[in-house]
């Protein structure tokens, strides 16, 4: 049975496609019918921003919605953003502009490579430059970073104060005045936050026990500002990159080892364009080849059931899923259990893309914070320890443990703390 066709068709008299003459009924097409009233201007406005071109590629398949961590606790995802913009929402002024953490789970599954990792910073930068609404907590973090070299607003001259209680000597490059094997970039949260300092001291002790020839920049170190870049402050990122690269280039080192995945991302992917190319590894990647020696030193069995949270910027963004697990497996008495959303499908803690300074804002738009959701998932595995390896995560997850009423059921530890505990505890 033939279906009656509404509307008329058009046929071009002359049609040449890529040099091939397809004149004739080959090029017959139906007249475009209006299937909605919306115009494409808003979408085109976004796609016109350099870096945000892929916003227009979306064909609404919805694969992203299933994996978007924000959608699980709210109403979000690239497909939904596209649809909103299609119906006339001004993304530049919308709160939705600030909910994406750039975790990359959407890009991982998108058949059209709609790249929010590039789209978000591009659109946010335009929004900030146009003086649109910027959540106040984020604004404070940006201003602090610009002025003090760290988002916490701490005194830059106290960045290396943590070394006083490290328990082992810590060398500062400027005073050491010789090349080193490993320049360890400590990072802002690791230097200033009380729980970050715990990890810093643990790292210092583990490096020393392994006989690594290492040093830090100390007070010359500035934030990598990768999350600020993703929050739309490319100028701030560039300013700090220039400073950090000038500092790095003063010294001679074989490897740059970082505490966290965000600085890994900055130094590996972006610094080369600004004149700073260094062999850089996340500390778990750096320690993996040291495993044989490590195993000898890991004496105390911890007797803990541990679940590991894949940081988005180490896992999905840089493909490293095994190194942290290998380290954890090497610790005597550690039983590793996996959460359902692990490895490539890991669930974001909510700290990336500027999210670290958007909790107070996101609170009005989400049912639950991402880190709260993740903690609930961790507790469900029966684990006693949630192991992490990103400086943003310890404070987020510890706060969420309290917020979800799981105090006493779950503790949060950086992998380096667990290693240190087994070595020296």
């Amino acid at each position, binding site marked *: 049975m033939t279906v009656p066709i509404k509307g008329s068709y058009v046929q071009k008299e002359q049609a040449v496609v890529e040099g091939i003459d397809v004149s004739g009924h080959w090029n017959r097409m139906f007249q475009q019918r209006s299937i909605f009233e919306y115009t494409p201007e808003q979408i085109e406005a976004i796609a016109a921003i350099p870096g945000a071109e892929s916003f227009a590629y979306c064909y609404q398949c919805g694969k992203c919605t299933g994996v978007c961590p924000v959608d699980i606790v709210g109403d979000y995802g690239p497909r939904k953003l596209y649809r909103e913009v299609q119906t006339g929402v001004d993304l530049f002024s919308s709160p939705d502009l600030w909910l994406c953490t750039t975790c990359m789970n959407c890009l991982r599954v998108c058949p059209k490579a709609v790249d929010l990792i590039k789209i978000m910073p591009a659109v946010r930068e335009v929004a900030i430059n146009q003086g649109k609404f910027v959540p*106040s*907590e984020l604004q404070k973090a940006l201003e602090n970073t610009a002025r003090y070299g760290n988002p916490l607003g701490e005194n830059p001259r106290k960045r290396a104060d943590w070394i006083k209680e490290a328990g082992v000597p810590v060398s500062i490059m400027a005073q050491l005045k010789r090349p080193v094997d490993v320049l360890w970039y400590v990072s802002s949260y690791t230097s200033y936050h*009380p729980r970050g300092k715990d990890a810093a001291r643990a790292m210092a002790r583990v490096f020393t026990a392994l006989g690594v020839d290492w040093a830090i920049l100390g007070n010359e170190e500035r934030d990598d500002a990768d999350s600020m870049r993703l929050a739309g402050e490319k100028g701030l990122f560039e300013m700090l990159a220039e400073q950090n690269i000038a500092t790095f280039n003063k010294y001679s080192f074989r490897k740059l080892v970082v505490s966290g995945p965000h600085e890994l991302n900055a130094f590996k992917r972006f610094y080369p364009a600004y004149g700073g190319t260094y062999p850089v590894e996340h500390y778990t990647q750096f320690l993996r080849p040291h495993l044989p020696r490590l195993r000898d030193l890991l004496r105390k069995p911890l007797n803990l059931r541990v679940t590991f949270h894949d940081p988005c910027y180490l896992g999905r963004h840089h493909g490293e899923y095994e190194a942290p697990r290998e380290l954890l497996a090497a610790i005597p008495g550690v039983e590793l259990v996996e959460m359902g959303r692990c490895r490539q499908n890991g669930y974001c803690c909510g700290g990336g893309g500027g999210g670290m300074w958007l*909790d*107070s804002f996101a*609170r009005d738009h989400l049912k639950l914070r991402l880190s709260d959701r993740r903690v609930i998932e961790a507790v469900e595995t029966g684990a006693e320890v949630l192991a992490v390896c990103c400086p943003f995560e310890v404070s987020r997850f510890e*706060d969420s443990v*309290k917020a979800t009423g799981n105090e006493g059921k779950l503790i949060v530890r950086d992998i380096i703390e667990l290693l240190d505990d087994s070595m020296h505890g």
Partner: protein
Amino acid sequence: MAGVMVLAEHLNGVLADLSFELAGKGRAMADALAEPLDVAVLGAPTLASEFGVADRVIAVTNTTLEVYSPTAYRAALAQLIREYQPRLVLVGNTSIGMDLAAAVSAELSLPLVSYCTGLRIDDGQIVATAQLYGGKVLVDALPATDHCIVAVLAGSFPADAGRRPGQPSIERRELAGVTSGGIRFRRLIQPEAGDVDITRQDILVSVGRGIQSQENLEGVEELARALGGELCASRPIVDNGWLPKSRQVGKSGLTVRPRLYLAVGVSGAPEHLEGMRGAECIIAVNSDPSAPIFEVADYGVVADLFEIVPALTDRLKQ
């Protein structure tokens, strides 16, 4: 040139406690200098009799002073100083005092010390102690001439010393040229009603910048509930819109005298201390060991408030 002159401060017909604090200290300074104490009351002559502690009360009766006007008050105060030539003029370091002190200082070339928390006589000279740099530094300043004006922070001296019975001589004056000039009063705007009156609370838990974000208020609210008290805050929290103005403690907010004031993440800048140093028991939690709040607190905890607050809430619920 003689005597100490105190400017009484009143708004809406009510004398501020500060007026008595100044009067009490004025009395002490006048006695130390062996000179008389005048209290100037502008635009509210019925309040003159409150100042038994003074030797003389100068009640300026101009109707243009009935409602506070910066220009009219300046003109009146300047005239009084020119005429009575006091050695020391005390005003409050308040919204009113800030309008007047610097202007009078400029007009009459009077040395001025602001943010004063202490006054003494050294070798016959007046030395004023001011609190600057967020309360982190004290400065002792000596006026280079024989006469000066000092703006005093509220709460620096006891109000009781100013509330003494007595029969001061009351001089009623109508001054010339006291007009509102280019500043015309239109109306008073009362603070938003319907919220808690923190000045009547026995137990207050106060948050400062250390709370970092609005969502963290919830945890402290819970603590306040567990204590049976109410939440209040320092200026930055209210400026951010995280709590209403009616919850603000400090110079530009309310003065409170609860039985318990638990300050969480409050550094203790002088403007805040002004509003709460009279509390019976002050407990402060701050991660900075040099936070000025520890100077006025009875008990202090140098720790991360995000650890102490939930721990304390838990303990209280047990």
